[in-house]
């Protein structure tokens, strides 16, 4: 499931598409803040800092194009959130979309949840390709007809029309979060979902917007005593009573909603003991978990901290079963990264469909993939230079010291403004979406 140097069962990643402006000047509103495939992989949604959601749909695989899979084209674009002003606190609420989560498809329409810092919205995306013609009470222009002038009745006929994709907000879940929402997760019961902010986690019913249940609250009575916040949360993919949440101290708590109404007491507590030899002033900051994701199987979960990705077996709390170094060469630069705020960057991570590989982003528009079976890893780059159709991506390497080989890049030459924070892997195929600032890259495996 991984790109390799070639040969044998290895396959290679190729460029497929890139979406977004080519300009050097990036408009802040265009910066992509979340990427998510739907359950079938047919749709790919992105949210940006300007509060917009853009959904791409994969075209049907045509017989003519055997060498590549269908391309993703824009399906729908809509403004999900607008900037708001909290008059009580004199605060502006950013419209930036923090997370998008799809609901499983149950009818012809598609549903997704999108969240900014304070509000979650349920959007219905539906197609309309027919219109009714021949109304009795209104004429062709839509003007109402005088009912007393109607002498005959007719049955309206459905006529084809150009496909129109409409997005409409069906529910607005507001006023439940004092702090900034960092996660939303749809439960496996397809009826409820959770939303998490820095200090609290709420459980919602998709049909009910005027109330939610608070299931985790770590706010101390005295805010002076606050030393730890919630950084991410996710529902278990199969057990609708189980969810996990991660913290800024590098811990993960698994909670069972059957145990108590308020899940402040965890059922399981995952933490890796600190290596005393590598302790520094930045140990805590780099241990802060920026993302947590269950495997599709539900047996494992993956966490991302600043320098590594860890895979945990839910049955073993005292240490992860696998640890992958993303960019260990940054360990000696932590002071500078603290100074320029890069140490606070929140990288996400994702599983492939079969849970055999994991992917996460890094700097310089690099992203990393790890094969859990072969233990091989690869670094690839999302750049316009490698943007020729079906161009094979060349593995990249960062030189950590000594003599720099050809094609290697030294640590000091890395561009820390080009960060890949959001990536997504198609649920069934080897197609990945990588958000590089304001561009969305789609890569796929080379079909031999």
């Amino acid at each position, binding site marked *: 499931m991984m790109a390799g140097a070639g040969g044998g069962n290895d396959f290679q990643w190729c460029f497929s598409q890139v979406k977004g402006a080519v300009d050097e000047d990036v408009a802040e509103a265009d910066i992509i803040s979340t990427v998510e495939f739907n359950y079938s992989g047919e749709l790919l949604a992105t949210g940006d800092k300007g509060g917009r959601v853009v959904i791409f749909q994969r075209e049907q695989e045509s017989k003519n194009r055997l060498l590549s899979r269908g391309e993703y084209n824009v399906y729908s674009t809509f403004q999900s959130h607008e900037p708001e002003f909290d008059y009580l*606190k*004199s*605060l502006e609420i950013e419209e930036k979309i923090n997370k998008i989560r799809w609901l499983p498809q149950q009818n012809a329409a598609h549903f997704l949840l999108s969240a900014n810092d304070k509000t979650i919205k349920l959007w219905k995306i539906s197609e309309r390709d027919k219109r009714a013609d021949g109304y009795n009470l209104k004429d062709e222009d839509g003007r109402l007809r005088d009912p007393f002038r109607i002498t005959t009745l007719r049955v309206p006929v459905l006529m084809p029309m150009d496909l129109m994709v409409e997005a409409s907000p069906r529910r607005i879940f507001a006023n439940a979060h*004092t*702090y*900034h929402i960092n996660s939303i997760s749809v439960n496996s019961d397809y009826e409820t979902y959770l939303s998490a902010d*820095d*200090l609290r986690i709420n459980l919602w019913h998709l049909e009910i917007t005027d109330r939610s249940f608070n299931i985790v609250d770590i706010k101390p009575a005295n*805010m*002076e*005593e*606050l*030393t*730890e*916040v919630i*950084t991410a949360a996710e529902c278990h993919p199969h057990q609708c009573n189980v969810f996990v949440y991660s913290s*800024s101290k590098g811990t993960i708590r698994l909670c069972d909603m059957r145990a108590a109404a308020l899940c402040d007491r965890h059922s399981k507590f995952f933490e890796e003991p600190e290596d005393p030899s590598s302790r520094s*002033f*930045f140990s*805590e*900051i780099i241990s*802060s978990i920026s993302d947590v994701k269950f495997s599709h199987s539900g047996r494992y979960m993956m966490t991302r901290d600043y320098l590594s990705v860890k895979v945990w077996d839910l049955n073993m709390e005292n240490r992860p079963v696998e640890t992958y170094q993303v960019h260990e060469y940054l360990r000696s630069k932590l*002071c500078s990264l*603290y*100074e320029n705020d890069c140490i*606070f960057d929140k990288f996400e991570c994702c599983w492939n469909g079969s849970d055999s590989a994991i992917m996460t982003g890094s700097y310089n528009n690099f992203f990393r993939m790890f094969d859990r079976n072969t233990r091989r890893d690869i670094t690839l780059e999302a750049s316009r230079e490698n943007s020729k159709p079906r161009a094979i991506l060349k593995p990249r390497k960062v030189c950590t010291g000594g003599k720099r080989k050809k094609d290697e890049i030294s640590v000091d030459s890395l561009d820390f403004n080009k960060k890949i924070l959001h990536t997504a892997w198609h649920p069934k195929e080897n197609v990945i979406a990588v958000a590089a600032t304001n561009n969305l890259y789609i890569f796929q495996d080379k079909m031999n």
Partner: protein
Amino acid sequence: MVARGQKRKLHREDEGRGSARESQLQSVLDISMDKFLRDQALVEPCLLRSVLINNTLRQVQSEVRAQVESLSAVKIPMKLKPEPDFTQLSPPAEHNASLSSPNAENTEDDFMVWTSEEDFSLSSAISAILKDLDAVIDAGQGPCASQRAPLRSVENLTPCPPRTERTSAVASSAKTELMCPGRPQDAALDKLLLDIDPSVFEPELNLLQGFSVTADDLVKYLPSLSKSPSASSSSSLVSNGQAMWEIQEIEHVMDILMRTYPQS
């Protein structure tokens, strides 16, 4: 028995490691305080970021305390001669009379003894004064308390050479300011004073009340972070991070403080 030369060599290695650690401590402190203050100015700082910076500052604080404690454990056994009577430091107006110049006329040992004793007496006196002043200032001033950058200013009081490039420019300019009697006393005083608890003005989201750099803490950590010019000339004089304030500067500071707030 270990030869004297070998002992010294070990000591120098220790110093090398220690100074690297110290310089990182200094950097982390500078950066953290800078971020802390910037975030204070924001209407709604990011909670995760605030907590992480806060915890880092606490870590630095505890490291500094540990250093000071280890220094005090080292200093006391080194007393060789009866030290001058420093009890007269408590009323600071008499400070000028009781102390003589620390400059290099003394022998090495005397100097260490004297400065270590002076340090602690001075520290306690200054911290007491600063505490009182803080109480007064905090009561008097409102939100503008958060505008000051107190830590940096106190660092400015240490004599040159400055420790890092970052603080050097500020150090020299502030020092000049302090030395000029014609300058507005408020500006000098502002720079001296600590920003105890600006978060009292921001109830909900500001959790940094937990990290309040008291005058006590500040003065405690100063000895371990600053180095005096005389230290560079005689390396054995100053153990890692021992503060040595020029008496004239201290007197000047005292004068300013007393003139502005005579009641304390």
